[in-house]
C-alpha cells in the first residue's frame, strides 16, 4: 500500500517518496528549493488550491487511488488548466527529449535501416499525439469551459447546444483510447525488436522515458475520461433540459 500524501507533509518528503511526482509539481509552477515547507504552505505561497494539488498528486502516485467523485468537485476551469499544462509538458519536454535520444541512437547504430521502422512508428505517433493535443486545446477545452459558464451563469446556451449536437463529450469519450494503445505498442516493439546497438545505455534511457510518458499519459487520459468528461456530460444534459 502506498501512503497518501497529506497537506501537512513536507513537500520535500513527497518528492523523496516518489521522485516522479516532480513532473506534476512542476506543472503547478512550483520550483525546487521548498526547504522544510509543508505541502499546504507551498500551495499558499504559490496560490494553488491545496486540495486539488493533493488529489492530483495522489492519483498520480498511486494508480489504485482515484477519487473520481472528489476530483469532479473541482471546477472545469481548474481541471482544464492542469490538463493544458500537461499537454505543454509533452509538447515542449517529454516528446522532444525522446526524439533527441532516438536521434542519438540512430547516429550510433551501424545499420540504421533496421531501426528505421520503429523510429518511423514513433514519429507518426508524435504527429498524431500533437494533433490530438492541439485539437483538445483548441476545440475541446474551450467547449467544456463554455458549457460550465452557461451552466453556472445561466446564460443563453443555444450556441453551445448547437455545438453539442455536432460533437458532444460522449463522442469525445468514444474516440479517446487509441493514443494510449499506440504508445504501449511502441514500447513493446522497442523492447523486443530494437537491434543490438553499441550504446545500450541510450536504449535504456529511451525505455525509461517511454515508461514515464506512458504512466503520465495514462494518468492524464484518466482525468480527461473519468473526471472532465463525466462532469461536462452532466452539465450538457441539464442545459438541454432547460431549453
Amino acid at each position, binding site marked *: 500500500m502506498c501512503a497518501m500524501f497529506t497537506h501537512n507533509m513536507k513537500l520535500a518528503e513527497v518528492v523523496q517518496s516518489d521522485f516522479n511526482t516532480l513532473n506534476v509539481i512542476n506543472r503547478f509552477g512550483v520550483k525546487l528549493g521548498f526547504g522544510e515547507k509543508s505541502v499546504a504552505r507551498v500551495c499558499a505561497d504559490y496560490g494553488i488550491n491545496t486540495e486539488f494539488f493533493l488529489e492530483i498528486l495522489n492519483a498520480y502516485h498511486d494508480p489504485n487511488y482515484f477519487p473520481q467523485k472528489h476530483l469532479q468537485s473541482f471546477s472545469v476551469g481548474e481541471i482544464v488548466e492542469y490538463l493544458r499544462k500537461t499537454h505543454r509538458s509533452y509538447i515542449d519536454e517529454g516528446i522532444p527529449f525522446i526524439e533527441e535520444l532516438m536521434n542519438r541512437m540512430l547516429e550510433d547504430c551501424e545499420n540504421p*535501416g533496421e531501426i*528505421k*521502422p*520503429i523510429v*518511423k*512508428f514513433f514519429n*507518426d*505517433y508524435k504527429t498524431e499525439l500533437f494533433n490530438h493535443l492541439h485539437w483538445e486545446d483548441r476545440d475541446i477545452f474551450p467547449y467544456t469551459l463554455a458549457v460550465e459558464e452557461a451552466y453556472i451563469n445561466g446564460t443563453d446556451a443555444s450556441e453551445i447546444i448547437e455545438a453539442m449536437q455536432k460533437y458532444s463529450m460522449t463522442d469525445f469519450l468514444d474516440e479517446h483510447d*487509441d493514443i494510449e*494503445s*499506440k504508445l*504501449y*505498442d*511502441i514500447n*513493446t*516493439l522497442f523492447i523486443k*525488436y530494437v537491434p543490438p546497438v553499441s550504446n545500450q545505455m541510450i536504449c535504456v534511457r529511451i525505455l525509461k522515458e517511454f515508461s514515464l510518458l506512458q504512466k503520465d499519459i495514462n494518468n492524464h487520459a484518466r482525468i480527461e475520461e473519468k473526471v472532465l468528461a463525466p462532469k461536462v456530460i452532466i452539465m450538457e444534459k441539464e442545459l438541454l433540459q432547460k431549453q
Partner: protein
Amino acid sequence: MSKVIFIVAEPSYIIRKGLVSLINELPNTLVARELETAQKLIETATHHGADAIVINAELLRELSQADRKTLLNGKKKTAVVTISCSALSHSDEITNISSSQIMLSESKPSVLKKIKGIIYQVDTSEATPENQELSDREVEILKDVALGLSNKEIAEKNFISPHTVITHRKNITRKLGIKTVSGLTIYAILNKIIGMEALE
C-alpha cells in the same frame, strides 16, 4: 489462468491461519481446505484437485506408506510443502516427498518466495511457449492487416467469415502483445512478413 489450489494441514490454529493468509496474499491462489489432522488428507486433496499441500512435518509422518505413495505418484501431481520447527535431515524419509520446506523461524519474504516457487512449479495452465507463436494462418491474416486491409476484405480474400477474421486478430494481439494496426504493421516489417515499402 486457473487458480493454484492449496490444502493447508496444520494443528496449530495460529500457524495455520498465518499460512493461509500468506498464501492468499499471492495472486491466483485458492486455499480450498484447512485441516487440523492428517485424517482424510488424501481424500480431501483428491476431492479438491489440490495442486499443493502445505503440511506440518509431524502430520506428514503420520501418513501410511500407501498414502505417501498416492501423494507422490497419484494421477495428479501434488506438490508437498512441509512445515517444521527445524530443518529436516536429508536422511529423513519425508524429505524425499517434500518439494519444499518451510521453517517456523523463517521471515515472511523467504516463506513467500518458497510458496511462489511451488506455484511456478505446478502452474502449467498458461500456454506453453510454442503456442505463443503465430500459426501460418495467423501470419497470413497479419500480413493483410499490416497492409491495411479491412476485416471484410480479409474475409473475402481468405474465404472465411468476418467473425473468424476478428477471432484471428484477437489471437494475434494476445500472442504478440501488440494492440494497434500501426504496431502490427511495424511488427510485420521487422519480421520481414511484409516489405519496408509498405511504410511509404
